[in-house]
């Protein structure tokens, strides 16, 4: 590897045979795909035959870091986990923070390629270049917290650990892989671990990362980035109350989905104001190399029990809270904790529960069908039993565990109330109130995902542009460029929050250039991002996705949010031709030969 920041090789593990080895990271892959999400796009596209069973032996788990991971570039404690998603059948990369990512590089690897199926439950233990599979039958069945606690005690100092919970073991398509309480949450990678009998991964590295820029210049460049974030006026809000600060703001401007997206404003969000959330904080926590500090340990009581766990974040609070009409903060903290420990995606779990609630509200689902559980909007007491039954795949929980769309299909009704795209449940931004988010949900490769083009930055916060939030005019271009630039954040890998904290496109280019020593310009940000999005698109096309899949649930085109005085609706198909033209896709959404040639795909 001729560039700095990379370790030059991936660890390969064949779970079927127990064989381990390495695969050299190609220079060309670094140049064209940068790292993280880009590596995953390229490697899964190259390695997976179309239409394989995501939970069969052919699926591959790829852990990928980026060239900035674990270096002094701020917020680079994140790692990407790529699989073909058992929830959506799309390509899927999800990301987790904490301290796991850096250790993979310090151990000497850009990532890990995991193939095959183990005959018995195992933990992959990576101790620098000593790699082995360890019997995990003793922790199989245990939750993510207990599994990690046991491994931490057994393996000794310095190991960073991630594990699946019962949900992943039970092949729940919305299962996560957890490191402490950081989740590779979306798209169900945890089920792929479960299908491979891979319970946990532990990694410790004593080596270092060499960079492609002279040391003093590198340190100075990184310090400038840190200083920009530290000086940003938004940072203290993250530091104080985590990521939930935006929820009341979104609600105030009629941009926060309520009761399964029936409205875009909740009557009461006072219970999740910053000062309410902060009341429970015991200690501020951060990922490696981060100075934003959105994490914290909280202590709370519910049902006579006292818990010490991770603070709620924006999306989990919304998905289980306002989205379900629930206003009980300790109930949300408990539900969030249960999802983390059992290994369920809080967002898809919330989306599946809110679907059941709307079905109940409309008289389309009876209590007999829900095993007697009361899925009325606002019923906080249903969260814990619903989540437990989903992880265990018991009764009605076995339906919900498959996500809202599949649950509707199995029940045989109510698919229009499954608020998802391509099977992935939607996030805490109202498409009717931020049309760019709607177009992004409809077109992003892994389904409805707020983090792949956070257009609210340009539609509301005045960062990276200034657009009318309701109009569709200009949105195809905005969504396309943000989808492309976000690929760089996901490939370096940095934290998405840096977008809100003063890191612009020029600085992301610098964050790529500093560790690698590549000449990396703003134009390269967009070109590499375009390449990554296009390869992800090709992967999905091979899976049979078509133009018809780039759409939102029908509600948004039919109904305005009752709280919206402007009565806005949203039909993103009105601008799909324009979006495809921006992307140089043909009218069916297929990348044109000219585009593939220009991008060297």
């Amino acid at each position, binding site marked *: 590897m001729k560039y700095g920041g990379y370790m030059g090789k991936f660890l390969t593990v064949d779970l079927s045979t127990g064989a381990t080895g390495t695969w050299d990271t190609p220079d060309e892959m670094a140049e064209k795909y940068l790292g993280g999400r880009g590596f995953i796009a390229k490697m899964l596209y190259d390695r997976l035959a179309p239409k394989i069973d995501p939970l069969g032996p052919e699926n591959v788990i790829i852990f990928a870091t980026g060239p900035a991971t674990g270096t002094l570039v701020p917020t680079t404690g994140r790692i990407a986990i790529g699989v073909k998603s058992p929830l959506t059948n799309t390509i899927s990369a999800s990301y987790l923070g904490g301290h796991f990512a850096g250790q993979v590089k310090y151990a000497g690897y850009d990532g890990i390629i995991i193939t095959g199926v183990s005959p018995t439950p195992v933990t992959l233990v990576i101790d620098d270049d000593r790699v082995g599979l360890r019997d995990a039958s003793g922790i199989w069945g245990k939750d993510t917290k207990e599994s990690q606690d046991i491994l931490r005690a057994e393996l000794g100092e310095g190991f960073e650990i991630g594990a699946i919970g019962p949900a992943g073991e039970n092949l729940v398509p919305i299962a996560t892989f957890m490191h402490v309480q950081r989740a590779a949450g979306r798209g169900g990678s945890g089920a792929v671990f479960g299908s491979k009998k891979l319970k946990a991964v532990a990694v410790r590295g004593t080596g270092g990362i060499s960079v492609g820029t002279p040391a003093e210049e590198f340190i100075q460049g990184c310090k400038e980035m*840190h200083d920009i974030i530290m000086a940003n006026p938004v940072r203290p809000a993250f530091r104080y109350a985590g990521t939930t600060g935006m929820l009341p703001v979104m609600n105030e401007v009629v941009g926060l989905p309520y009761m399964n997206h029936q409205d875009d404003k909740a009557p009461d969000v006072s219970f999740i104001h910053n000062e309410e959330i902060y009341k429970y904080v015991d200690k501020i926590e951060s990922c490696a190399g981060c100075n934003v500090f959105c994490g914290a340990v909280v202590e709370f009581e519910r049902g006579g029990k006292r818990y*010490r766990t991770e603070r709620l974040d924006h999306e989990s609070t919304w998905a289980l809270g306002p989205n379900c009409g629930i206003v009980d903060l300790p109930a949300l903290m408990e539900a969030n904790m249960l999802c983390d420990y059992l290994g369920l995606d809080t967002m898809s779990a919330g989306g599946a529960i809110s679907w059941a609630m709307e079905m109940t509200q409309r008289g389309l689902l009876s209590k007999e069908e829900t095993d007697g559980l009361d899925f009325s909007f606002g019923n906080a007491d249903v969260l814990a039993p619903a989540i437990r039954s989903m992880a265990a795949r018991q009764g009605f929980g076995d339906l919900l565990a498959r996500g809202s769309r599949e649950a509707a299909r199995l029940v045989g009704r109510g698919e229009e109330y499954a608020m998802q795209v391509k099977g992935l449940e939607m996030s805490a931004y109202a498409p009717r109130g931020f049309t760019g988010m709607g177009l992004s949900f409809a077109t992003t490769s892994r389904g409805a995902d707020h983090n792949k083009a956070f257009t609210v930055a340009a539609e509301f916060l005045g960062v990276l542009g200034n657009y009318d939030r309701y109009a569709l005019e200009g949105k195809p271009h905005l969504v396309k460029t943000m989808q492309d630039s976000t690929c760089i954040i996901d490939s370096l890998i940095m934290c998405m929050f840096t977008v809100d904290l003063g890191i612009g496109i020029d600085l992301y280019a610098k964050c790529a250039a500093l560790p690698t020593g590549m000449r990396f310009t703003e134009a390269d940000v967009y070109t590499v991002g375009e390449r990554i999005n296009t390869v992800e698109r090709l992967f999905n096309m091979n899976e049979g996705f078509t133009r018809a899949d780039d759409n939102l649930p029908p509600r948004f085109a039919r109904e305005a949010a009752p709280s919206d005085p402007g009565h806005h609706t949203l039909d993103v198909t009105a601008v799909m031709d324009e979006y495809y033209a921006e992307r140089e896709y043909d009218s069916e959404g297929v990348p044109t030969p000219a585009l593939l040639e220009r991008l060297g795909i």
Partner: protein
Amino acid sequence: MSHVEFDKDKCTDCRMCMQICSMHKLGRVTPAAACIQIDRERSKYYGDMGCRVCDMTHERACVDACPVEALIYEPDLDVVRFDAELCTECLACLDVCPNVARDVKSGRIMICDLCDGDPLCVKWCPEGALSWGAEA
């Protein structure tokens, strides 16, 4: 006499101190080899923060343990210095003091020298969990 002081209640476990220390001293980001080690109580979930760094009390166990003169006390700056040329890699210093680290790749013994009077770990700590100053 002064040393880097640690406030466990302020530390968020970002470990940036370990990154900058190793980058500055080795030219590679190598947290395991940093002169300062953020060391969390691992028997508990989200356990108490801890930190290992030379406390500069200069009982000089490391110096005394060194069979050659690879570790030498330098009175002018009041720190212990390491000379790689003389080190035989006997690792005796590591045995006698938990605040001594070693870079596996180069074999270099790592011990805090206060960055010649301007400790970078203190400068980079985003929460002010690290500080230093002359004691009375």
